[in-house]
Structure formats: C-alpha cells, structure tokens
C-alpha cells in the first residue's frame, strides 16, 4: 500500500469532518469546492481541508479509496457524505446539522476550527 493511500485514509478516518477540495479555504480553485465549504461553514462544522491539486495522484488515490469520481468529497468520521450537491441539499434540509450532531455530539460547533492538511 502506497504512502499516499495511507495518508489519505488517515485523514478520512482521523478527522471529524474532512473536505477534499481544489485549492484551500484561502484560495478556492473551483466553484463546487466552494459550495461544499460554504455549506459546511453554515452549519459550523469543524472542517479539515485537503487540497487535491498539488499532485494528480491525490485525486486518483482518493477516488480509488472512496469509489467517488468527482471533487469535492466530504467525509464525516470516516464515512463519505457526498459531493457539493449532496452537502448543499443536506444542509438545506437540516439533515447535515443533524448528522453532525449525531456523529460528533451536540456541541460539535464549539470545536469549530478550520484546518488544512497536506497528504503529499
């Protein structure tokens, strides 16, 4: 198993909310990544972002791990929630908030801090 594959899995399984995106929260490089990030911010999710752009291999490995072909990808405690459309839809219906409260505990907003990790 490759080192990259291992670090991607570590992020997915180790972070409360992981967002694999194009760019960083400071410089978002894709409209869909921005949509996912903003939906997560609206519910106060403690987001850990990973930029997939530094190396095309990140995207390939990530899709191999998740079975999801597009970016962004959002995981909560190791489980794939979906891409931008799903995260927006779940946020609008209130389900995203319920999922976060159920998985991370009702006080999940208190730990609200955005961080960025690198997998390469």
């Amino acid at each position: 198993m490759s080192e990259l594959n291992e670090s991607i899995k570590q992020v997915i399984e180790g972070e409360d909310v992981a967002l694999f995106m194009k760019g960083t929260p400071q410089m978002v490089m894709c409209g869909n990544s921005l949509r996912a990030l903003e939906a997560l911010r609206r519910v106060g999710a403690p987001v850990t972002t990973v930029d997939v752009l530094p190396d095309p291999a990140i995207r390939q490995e990530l899709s191999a791990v998740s079975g999801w072909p597009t970016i962004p990808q959002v995981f909560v405690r190791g489980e794939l929630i979906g891409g931008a459309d799903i995260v927006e839809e779940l946020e609008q219906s209130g389900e995203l908030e319920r999922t976060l409260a159920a998985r991370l505990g009702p006080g999940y907003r208190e730990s609200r801090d955005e961080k960025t990790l690198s997998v390469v």
Partner: protein
Amino acid sequence: MATEPLRALLAQAFPDAGELDVLDRTGTGDHFQVTVASARFDGLPLVEQHRLVYEALATPLADGTIHELRIKTRGPG
C-alpha cells in the same frame, strides 16, 4: 458532448425514470446538470443515489468528456 448521448445512458440505467433531464449548463458541452426521478432511488441515502448516476455515466466521466456534473435525484413520486 451533446446532451443526447448522456440522456441515452441515463435512460438505459433508469428505464422507469419519470423525469430525466440533462442540461448543458455552460453551453460548452462539458458542464452538465442532470435530474433523474426513479424508483431505483427509493430508500437510498443521497450518496448511494448519486453513485447510481455516476455508474450510469462512468464512461464519459472517466474519459474526461464530463468536466463537471451536478446531480439532482428524487424518487418517482
């Protein structure tokens, strides 16, 4: 790519679809919005519903024909 081949792939995967719409969002043949209403989605979480759409469009997604895909799924009702 025109919208018609994508529509055909979706119609094949969702023969029961009550609503099946493919929109070229940017007019450039690579950014699409698809809407599918099908009984195949019944009882499935959104992530699994979208997976079924990705499976139906696996070829144009893999070869880069589809640069961006927005998906809206719902049950048949």
